[in-house]
C-alpha cells in the first residue's frame, strides 16, 4: 500500500522542503502548497528495508506514519522533525510495539497493548506527559480499541485527556473536531455534542450541547462511519450514502456556497480587469445557497456510487468510493483538493491523478489543510 499526500506542506510534512535559502518565487509556492498527489516516501527500518506505512494521521504541521508490521513504530514528519540524520526528514518516536496512534497539534497519543501515552510535542521530554494503563485486551472483552475511543471513554485532544462515556451508548467509533464530537454507536445511531454555533451538531439549531444527543434526523438508518472537520460533520450509512451537515462557507458540505462563488467571481474579475472591483451578484436565478446546514443532508458525491470511507480537514472533505475513486470538495487554497489547482470547490470532484495512474484508492485521511490517500495498483484491486 502506497500513500500519496497533497495540500499544505509548509513544514515539509508531505515531502521535505528544499534547503535553498534563495528560493525562486515559484519554488516557495510549490513547496508550501503541494497541488498534485505526491508519494510519501517510506521510512527505512533498522534492517535497512523500507517499512510499510499502514496508517497515516496528520495534524496542522505534522504527519505521523504508523508502521505496524514487525518493528512497530511511529515516524513523525513536519514541524520539529529531525532533518540531520534521517534522509527522509522524519524522526522516529519511542514507540516500539505500539498498535495505534493519533496526533493533534500539541500531542501525540500512542496506544500499546497495556497502556496509552500522550506525548507533548512542544517539549523534548523523556517521558509522556500523560499515560493510562489498559486492561489487557482479550477476545471476549468487546471490540478492539478504536482511537480515540478506549474502554469506558475516549482520549481528548486537550487535558483532561481521559473522558468517560456512558456504557449505554455502546460506543463504536468517535470523531473529534476542534470543538465538537460525533459518536457512532453499535446500533448504528449517531450522537453529537460540543459547540453548535455552525450547525455542526445536526440537531436543527445553533445551540451547543454538553452531553451526547442523538441526531434524530438519522433515526432509523444505520450508519457505519463518522468523521468531523473544523465546523462540519459527515457520516456514511451502511448502504454507502454520505450525509453532511454544519458550516458550508468554503463548500465543505458539497452544497452551493454563496461565499465561495463570490470569492471565485472576485478572483476572476481581478485577473481580468487587473483591479479589485465588486462584481454584481450574477447568481443564477433559482439557485439556493447554503451557508449553514443544521440538519443532515444527503450528498450525492458521484452518480451511483457507494462511499467506503471519508475524512475531513478543517474546511474540506475527502471521500473514497467502493470503486477506488477519491472525491474531494471544500477549501482548496493550499492544494488540499488535489486537482492540480489552488481553488476551492463546493462540488465533489474526482481526483483524476489516481485514475490516470491506474491506482485504486482504498483509504483517506486528512490533516487540517492537507489530504493523504492510500492506494494499491489497479490489477491488485481487481484480482
Amino acid at each position, binding site marked *: 500500500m502506497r500513500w500519496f499526500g497533497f495540500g499544505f506542506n*509548509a513544514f515539509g510534512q508531505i515531502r521535505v522542503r528544499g534547503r535553498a535559502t534563495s*528560493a525562486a*518565487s515559484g519554488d516557495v509556492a510549490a513547496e508550501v*502548497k503541494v497541488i498534485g498527489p505526491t508519494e510519501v516516501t517510506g521510512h527505512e527500518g533498522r534492517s535497512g528495508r523500507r517499512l510499510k506505512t499502514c496508517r497515516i494521521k496528520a495534524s496542522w504541521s505534522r504527519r505521523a506514519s504508523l508502521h505496524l508490521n514487525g518493528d512497530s513504530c511511529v515516524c513523525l514528519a513536519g514541524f520539529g522533525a529531525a532533518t540531520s540524520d534521517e534522509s527522509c526528514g522524519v524522526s522516529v518516536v519511542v514507540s516500539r510495539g505500539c498498535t495505534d496512534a493519533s496526533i493533534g497539534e500539541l500531542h501525540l497519543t500512542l496506544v500499546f497493548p497495556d497502556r496509552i501515552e500522550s506525548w507533548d510535542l512542544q517539549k523534548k521530554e523523556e517521558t509522556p506527559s500523560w499515560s493510562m494503563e489498559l486492561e489487557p485486551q482479550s477476545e471476549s472483552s468487546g471490540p478492539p480499541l478504536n482511537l480515540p475511543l478506549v474502554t469506558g471513554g475516549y482520549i481528548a485532544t486537550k487535558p483532561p485527556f481521559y473522558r468517560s462515556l456512558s456504557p449505554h451508548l455502546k460506543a463504536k467509533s468517535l470523531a473529534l473536531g476542534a470543538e465538537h464530537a460525533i459518536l457512532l454507536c453499535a446500533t448504528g445511531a449517531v450522537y453529537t455534542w460540543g459547540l453548535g454555533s455552525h450547525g455542526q451538531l445536526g440537531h436543527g439549531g445553533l445551540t451547543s450541547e454538553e452531553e451526547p444527543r442523538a441526531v434524530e434526523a438519522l433515526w432509523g438508518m444505520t450508519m457505519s462511519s463518522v468523521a468531523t472537520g473544523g465546523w462540519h460533520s459527515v457520516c456514511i450509512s451502511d448502504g454507502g450514502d454520505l450525509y453532511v451537515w454544519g458550516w458550508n462557507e468554503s463548500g465543505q458540505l458539497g452544497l452551493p456556497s454563496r461565499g465561495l462563488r463570490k470569492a471565485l467571481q472576485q478572483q476572476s474579475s*481581478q485577473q481580468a480587469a*487587473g483591479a479589485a472591483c465588486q462584481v454584481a451578484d450574477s447568481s443564477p436565478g433559482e439557485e439556493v445557497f447554503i451557508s449553514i446546514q443544521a440538519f443532515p443532508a444527503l450528498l450525492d458525491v458521484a452518480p451511483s456510487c457507494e462511499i467506503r470511507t471519508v475524512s475531513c480537514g478543517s474546511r474540506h472533505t475527502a471521500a473514497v468510493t467502493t470503486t477506488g475513486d477519491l472525491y474531494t470538495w471544500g477549501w482548496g487554497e493550499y492544494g488540499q483538493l488535489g486537482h492540480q489547482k489552488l481553488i476551492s470547490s463546493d462540488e465533489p470532484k474526482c481526483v483524476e491523478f489516481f485514475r490516470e495512474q491506474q491506482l485504486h484508492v482504498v483509504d483517506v485521511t486528512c490533516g487540517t489543510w492537507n489530504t493523504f490517500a492510500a492506494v494499491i495498483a489497479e490489477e491488485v484491486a481487481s484480482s
Partner: protein
Amino acid sequence: MKTCSSMATLWSKISAVLPPGEEQFPLQFSDTVESSLVDVLKRSRRQLYGDAASSSSRAIDAQIILDFSWEKLNTGTWRHVDKEWRRLYAYGCLFKVAALCREGPSADNVPQAVRTCDMGLLMGAAIMDNILQVIVGILQGEVRKSSKEEDDKTEQVEVKRLKIECPRAPVIRGELAVPRVKCPSLESFNTNHLLPLKPVILEGIIDHWPALNGHRWSIEYLRSVAGCRTVPVEVGSRYTDEEWSQTLLTVDEFIDRYILNEDGVTGLGYLAQHQLFDQIPELKEDIRLPDYCCLGEEDEDDITVNAWFGPGGTVSPLHHDPQQNFLAQVVGSKYIRLYSPEDTDKLYPHQSQLLHNTSQVEAENPDTERFPDFAAAPYLECVLRPGDVLFIPVRHWHYVRSLELSFSVSFWWS
C-alpha cells in the same frame, strides 16, 4: 499610475514606522499559541528585515498566519475568542501589508493593503501601538494623491442622482410628539429627563460640530476621507429577516451600490452600528461627545460611539438597548417611534436568547391578528432632523426608519 519610485517612497515611509530591526520587533505570545505557528511568525519577521526572501515567500507566510488565526477567530463564540488570536490576526495583516507595499509597481497593491489594514483593525486586536492604524493613514495619503483628478467630475453627477428620493415625512401629531428642548442645563436635563427616564429631543447641542459646519458631512466628503476604507455593511430589509446578512465593502462601493444604486441592486444596505470613528480618526474629529454624558457613571473611554449611514428606507426593528443613548442626526432625517419599558407586555418580544431585546411586531405595519395588544400600546414619535439629538433612555423601546439618505451618530453611555 504607480511608478517604481513612488512605491519606493511608500515603502520607506512604512519602514520608518516599523521597529528598526529584528531585535526590536516584539513577538510575545502566551502558551495558547502553538510553537509551529510561532515558527512561521519568526520566519515572517526575518523576511521583513532581510533581503533574501522573495515577495511570494513573504506573502505566503503572511497568509498562513492569517488563515490559521482566522480559523481560531471563528471557533467558539466571538466574545470568548482568546485575545491572542486577534493579535495574531493583526500580525498576519501587518506582514501581508509589508509584503504588498515592498515591491512591485502594481497600483492594485495599495487598495489591497488598505483593505488588509482594515481587516486587521476590524477583526484583530491592536498591536505595536496600533501600528495598523498608523500604516493605513500613510496608505490613505497615497490613495488620495493618485485619485485627486477624478474627484471633481463625479461630484455633480451624484448630487443630481440623490434628488430623486424625497418621500413625504410622516405627520407627527402633537400629543404623540417627543418633547423638544433647546440647550437645557445639565441640571435640568438630569432632573427632567435622565432621572425620570423620559425621552426628549435636545436642540442646538451639536450646532458646533464640524460635521455640521466646516467639514459638513456629505457623500463627497465621506468619499474623500474614507472612500477606500473597508467597513461592515448590513444587507437586507431588517436584522430579523432570514435574508439578512453582513458583508464587507469599501465606503466607495457602499455608496455606489446602496446609496446611488449604480448597478440597479434592489436590496437595502446599511452601514449600521459600526465604530467607524475608531477606524477613521479624521471623522472622529468632526464630532464631539455630548456634555450630558458626564452625568453618567462611566469613563469617557467606555462610551460606545456608532455610525449609522444609509439610504432612505433602512429600518431598525423595534428593540431596546442596555444603555442610555444619545442619537445625533447629522445628515438627512429619520422617523422614530418610542415605547416605554412599562408597556413591554404589549410588544411581544422574541423568546430566543439572541433576539429577546427585539419585538416581533413590525411597528409601522403590525399584524393585528398575531399581535392584538400592540395597538393599545402608547407611544411617542418624531422626525429627527440634522442638528437634533434624541435622548433614548435605557431599555426604552425604539423603532427607526430613515426617510432619505441619512447619517446619524449614537452614543451609548451609562
